[in-house]
């Protein structure tokens, strides 16, 4: 399929534009909040197979996410950072990448991880306190989470530079949030990527909040405009419209792959849950706001669109069953998670021999002395 290009945020034009000009800008949207195709959506047409895949993965992500919250409430998990509401932004974007495109997530991209093949155990390990990193980045071309906000954007820049030096046409893709975008590192990453014309795609999930801080206290213009100012090719998309996210990301990633320089996709979305299971979002946001966003739910929206396209109820039932099964598996794998022994960690800090390994002996002697030895 070849489509007309989607609306891209222009590079800052060089001369003053007509002040009487532009209508209120809107993000790219193919399916409206009511689940009906927009004009752009109709013009483009829907790849129903793709839409089904996106829908299925969103259902699976939500099932895992909700089960994880339940596990946390029941004391089986220390902490969970929900991605509910952001499934379209994640599933839509990751499906637009090639498998060899290396991803640097932030920490809320459970749906991305799931699509890339992570098991629930791998996704949960970090949040039940048994590991800092739940999986091997080499396994699915997916780096582990970065918790210090924005730091991973520079790692992505370096990785992308490495790909170019290797003559590999893989695109490096990095996820981060609206809040993280305020960190110096993220802006340095934009600048390095633009200056060196690196094959990197920045994906910002703007979920409107950084813990209790709304985007109005986070930046003065929108992020896709800022990115364009740095010289990135920049797109703005309705992040609750999985098809739009997929289409925009596909266009962006291919432009990067073709060597047209780094790009950014800002997906406008919403975190339905609290920042984490420790957070009480009622302290800072209204029920009305939450309701308004619930009405833009990405799953409902795509379900309506698929139904309109003739997908039958039993297909949805099967998908739901798939979700329930994943939830059950999530619970089982969570309960089976086992932590390491402190003793095991001493040899893992350094690659080359290091005296810290002797501390292991001292630790084990201490266990003996206090009768806690194995």
């Amino acid at each position, binding site marked *: 399929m070849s489509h007309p290009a989607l609306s891209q945020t222009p590079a800052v034009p060089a001369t003053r534009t007509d002040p009487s000009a532009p209508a209120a800008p809107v993000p790219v949207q193919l399916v409206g909040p009511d689940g009906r195709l927009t004009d752009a959506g109709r013009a483009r047409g829907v790849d129903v197979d793709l839409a089904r895949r996106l829908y299925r993965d969103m259902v699976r992500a939500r099932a895992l996410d909700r089960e994880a919250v339940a596990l946390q409430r029941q004391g089986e998990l220390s902490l969970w950072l929900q991605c509910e509401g952001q499934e379209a932004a994640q599933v839509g974007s990751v499906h637009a990448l090639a498998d060899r495109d290396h991803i640097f997530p932030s920490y809320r991209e459970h749906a991305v991880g799931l699509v890339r093949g992570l098991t629930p155990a791998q996704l949960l390990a970090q949040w039940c306190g048994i590991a800092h990193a739940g999986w091997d980045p080499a396994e699915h071309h997916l780096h582990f989470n970065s918790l210090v906000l924005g730091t991973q954007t520079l790692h992505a820049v370096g990785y992308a530079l490495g790909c170019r030096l290797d003559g590999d046409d893989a695109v490096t893709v990095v996820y981060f949030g609206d809040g993280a975008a305020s960190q110096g590192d993220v802006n340095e990453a934009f600048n390095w990527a633009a200056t060196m014309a690196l094959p990197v795609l920045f994906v910002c999930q703007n979920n409107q909040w*950084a813990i209790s*801080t709304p985007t109005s206290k986070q930046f003065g213009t929108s992020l896709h405009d800022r990115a364009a100012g740095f010289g990135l090719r920049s797109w703005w998309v309705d992040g609750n419209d999985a098809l739009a996210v997929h289409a925009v990301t596909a266009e962006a990633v291919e432009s990067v792959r073709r060597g047209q320089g780094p790009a950014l996709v800002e997906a406008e979305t919403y975190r339905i849950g609290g920042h984490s299971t420790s957070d009480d979002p009622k302290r800072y946001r209204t029920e009305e706001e939450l309701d308004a966003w619930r009405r833009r739910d990405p799953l409902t929206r795509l379900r309506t669109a698929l139904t309109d396209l003739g997908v039958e109820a039993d297909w949805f039932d099967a998908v739901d069953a798939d979700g329930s099964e994943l939830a059950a598996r999530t619970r089982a794998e969570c309960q089976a998670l086992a932590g*390491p022994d402190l003793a095991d960690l001493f040899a893992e*800090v350094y690659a080359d021999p290091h005296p810290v390994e002797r*501390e292991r002996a001292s*630790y084990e002697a201490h266990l003996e002395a206090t009768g806690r030895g194995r």
Partner: protein
Amino acid sequence: MAVLPLGKALNLAMRRSLAEDDRVLVLGEDIGTLGGVFRVTDGLAAEFGANRVIDTPLAESGIVGTAIGLALRGFRPVCEIQFDGFVYPAFDQIVSQLAKMRARSRGRVQLPVVIRIPAGGGIGAVEHHSESNEAYFAHTAGLRVVSCSNPQDGYRLLRAAIRSNDPIVFFEPKRAYWDKGEVDLDASPASLDRALVLRKGRDCTLIAHGPSVKVALAAAEAAEEDGVSVGVVDLRSISPLDVETLQRCVAETGRAVVVHEASTFLGIGAEIAAAITEGCFRELKAPVQRVGAYQLPYPPAHVEDAFLPDVDRVLLAIDRSLNFGRTTAHV
């Protein structure tokens, strides 16, 4: 006298400082509307308004750099860093600007900035949320570094820190935020460079700060039951160190054990051991024992109890000190 948790005592210290001096400002991530992730600034924005209790963009260098500018304009900013592990993006502003500006200007400019950092482990948190990084700041000339261990001290020390005309990194033991204690709200601000002798002892002196003070006190109790008399000193000020008090106590007991959550290698215990040995060389009956975390990055919460110093490890160190020379003294 009120009985208050540490978090609330710190909250009241800021509240009083804001009320007493309208140049005092509080700024940081999520500290206004939310009242901070630990609620230590709860209610301050409502009471003093968004011009004095400022929710900032998510950028620690920005927070400290902006605080420096505010201080240059004559304000007295109190910054909150959300967690210990997130202070590093501000490291340059702290170490090269905040710490050095007064000396740079030969005293013409002063920067009364407080940087509050909830620090330390033991709350089962994910990575970067359990660091004990006081040594970096203590090694930096131009800063003062304070660590509080209980509600009364937290209240008095934070008030004193906000009144001081020097830049101060102020550590709060996050796992003690909910620990209650008596607080005299009319108590004067504490002196910022005096250690506090919490308990006298004849046989050995334990030296600790922040979250480790509780461990030290518990170890001293336990030792007492075994007939060993152990004193406990709460550093309160990590930089400068109150070397006189430390040396005086150790000169009496001849034995010292330092406890902290940071790794021992170049932790504040190294400086304390060196300084005590310099001052009490002849009085010391055993080398100063250091009990800290192992020399690893902070591990997953699952094993943090094994990683952090606990009463047992302190007791073993006291034993090593007491038995030094009797058995093969390998430490």
